């Protein structure tokens, strides 16, 4: 996990953050990841991933407004950086190119 590489779970979290726009904070990201991946994660795991992504420069963040639902505490809203988006795109391209190379007969095995 060292360096600038994007782990699998991190990628999930980063994608979820991108899709949520202004409403991206730990709880919503958790819901988003859970609905798409069809499994549950602990909130602390989401936190850990978010802070790590921020450390690596894939995300930036600012504090939002306090709300009643949060017991009067402010939330940290995350936004992808351009570097983050670039990395996502790079990952996707890499996968696409790998997909291209799979022969049709192999893909048919799963049918």
């Amino acid at each position: 996990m060292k360096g600038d590489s994007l782990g699998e779970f991190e990628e999930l979290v980063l994608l979820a953050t991108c899709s949520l726009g202004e409403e991206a904070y730990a709880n919503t990201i958790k819901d988003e990841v859970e609905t798409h991946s069809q499994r549950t994660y602990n909130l602390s795991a989401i936190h850990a991933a978010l802070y790590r992504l921020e450390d690596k420069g894939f995300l930036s963040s600012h504090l939002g407004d306090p709300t009643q639902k949060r017991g009067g505490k402010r939330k940290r809203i995350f936004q992808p950086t351009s570097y983050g988006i670039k990395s996502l795109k790079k990952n996707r391209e890499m996968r696409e190119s790998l997909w291209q190379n799979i022969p049709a007969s192999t893909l048919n095995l799963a049918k």
Partner: protein
Amino acid sequence: MHQPPKAPLKLFRWFCSSERVEEIEGDLFEAYQDWRETKSKLNSNWLYWWTVIRSFRFYLMKKHTSNPSMFLLMLRHFIKTAFRGSLKHKSHTFINLSGLSIGIATSLMLAMFIVDEVRMDYDLKDKELIYRVESYNALRSQEGFNGRVHTGLGPTLVEMIPEITHQTRMGKLNWTVMIEEDEKRSFFQEEFILTDSTFFEFFPLEFIHGSEKQVLTKVGDAVLTESLALKLYGTTDVVGKELNTTTRHNQQYFVKGVVKNPKPHSSIQFNILIFKDTHLDNIRFPLSVRSATYIKVLRSVSPKLLEAKINKTIKPIVSGKTMKATTFKLSSFHDAKYDKHTDDTIIEARDKQMSAVFAMVAVFILVLAIINYTNLTAARALQRGQEAGIRKIIGAGRKSFFFQFVTESTLMCFSSLAVALLLTASLLPSFEQAINRPLLFNYWVDPWFWGIVISAIILLSTIAGIYPAILVSRFRFSEFIKGNIANSTKGALLRKSLVIFQFAVAIIMIVSATVVKDQIDFIINKKLTYKPEQVILVENTVSKNLGLFRDQLSRIPDVNLASVTTSPPGGSSHRVSSDRNVFGQAIYQHNIDHNYAELLNFEFISGENFNPEKPSINEEEVIINETLAKLIQSVNPKNVNEPLAETYQFTVEPVKIKGIIKDIHMESLYESVKPMIFAYEPSNGFNVSRVLIEIRTDQIQETISAIEDLWTEVIPDQGFNFQFLDSRFEKLYTSEIRLGKIMSIFTSIAILISCMGLYGLIMFSIQSKTKEVGIRKVMGASVSQIVMLFNKQVFWLIGLAVLVAIPIAYWTMNSWLNGFAYHIDISTLTIILTICSSFVLAFLTVFFKSYGAANANPVDVLRSE
């Protein structure tokens, strides 16, 4: 709005760093609201807890100023410097290591024995509810409390006092078991306990054959231990077998059960349990056999109130003068175990004095070892003062010095512990032998043992490291850099007083060990008029052929003389004392024959020995001892001119005085000589008697087998059990003899450690004075003058130690000696010798070290700058 549980939130706030705490707390709060919509409260709370616990992540933790990697770095640094230092100063390390190892090993061994003592009977069920009933007879107040009471008391107590739920009575006897196999008889002397069926209520044991309910229900029932069953019959399946004892021919016993051996840590030890014949037990009878009686009470009962109730209930129903004058006392099982004065024959009283001495010695030796370490380390720390000075300049504070010295002492203590464990493991067997008692528990596999040992060592290291740390951190760094703190007098007073303390302890131990040894020699050797190592004692027998046996013994050439008696010297004598006599003191009767006086070398002051030719006259006369003669003269009950010529009823019959002998000691020297009569008793076959046989010492084995052959010929139905009289005497003083051995071992250890400490101190003193010595030599000082220079300061210390130690030693040993009726006085010679030897010892220690320094070439020393 749902309120999340408070406790996990508090926990979270405690560990989370302040920059993250708000946002995560908010996220948690929001998540909790969502969970409560879909899940039960319990589930949500649990989830909340779990999430907080999962959030223990390093990036969230509060940051502390000193980070852990710094700590590890310093630790590694200190360990490294400690290792280098100890390798560089090998003699210093050696003294420290060996002193500490010996100290720890000694205390460890002693601690094991003390813990053994404390853990005795730890698994006995409800032992706090068990009490021993003791009696006190106002008519015989000098006898104190008796551990055995009227045998009818136990059942009466259970019947009349509802607070007392159970009772069991016991009497321990050494009986001879006879096994007949193919016309061949073998005899075994075994420990019997006569008891009630309730025995197992008190002291539960696991049955191999039979069960608690079926055994000990009627006269003749016997229960064997596993080991005895194997010894006698070769198998444990012996239920229903017949068991014969020669001690009671007229009663047949049958084995009803076999139990596992009593645990070695149990106070109750036996080989056979026999049902106690109860039909004559009635508290209303004025006379009765005595039994050790144990009761079990309800949990809520106070023993003092119960005692009063027992006395109130029992007094009206007893009869007879003796019983009317008897009161009862309850003694808890624990107290009974340590009561050496009140014997009930069942539990062998444990020696509290020994444990106390052990504990004291253990603490002292450990303290001596720690003082050694502290003193040497402090001295060395000052000597390498420049190192400390530089540390201070770089910014080392008090904490850092503390950390450094504790690291060093921890390393040292744990290395010593390793050596000490090896020492203990190899020396333990010989130590067990020295005090004649193996350890009851195996400590090496006990996690508690290791836990306590390791925490004690950590504590020890902290104590040992604190003083040097404080001392060093007190100096200003300029003082360090100037380099003169090695000669500083700061803390010197404390170091000197510690050395004084060490030597004081050593001197006290030397004096005590010498006094104990002298006293033991005195009581074992001095006061006897005969040679106990040449007298064989044949134990209790009832046979009408004993007289014949005695007379036939003269056929064996190496037998000098033989005598049949109830009372061999060396304790547990058969005594009949009567308080009805006119002299106001109990008088002790010993039944003897005509050879007894000659065998024990009685010195007749007046009168003469019994004449075997005139047994009928002998029975009307007695021999008395000097103490009784003085008593008769002072009381003079008949008020006549010649009181010793009168007839008196000392015990049962009126008798005349045939002779008066000089006092001899029949018991341990803790007791003063009692007024005694020696009555003539021809061997009639009804009394339990013993035979004393005096032999000439060479060819012991052959003589004993010749005696045994004669025994089997004359008295074939009894076992031949014998011992030498000197071993019987030694048994009286086992605890003193052990005390003597132990004292001498530990005194040597204390002396060794103290000398090591002194040696180390002198070593440093010499090193810091090398230049002074050099200059003195250049100015013309001789070697002896320089040696004396170092010795002078040490002599001061030893002198002070003597002043402190001698009064303490004198006082302690005097009070120990006063426990004996006959004792030596602490001789001035002993004290002077002790003082001289400690001076000589100190001188030699210092001399070895200072001689080299005094002989060194002053040029080498002075050039070294």
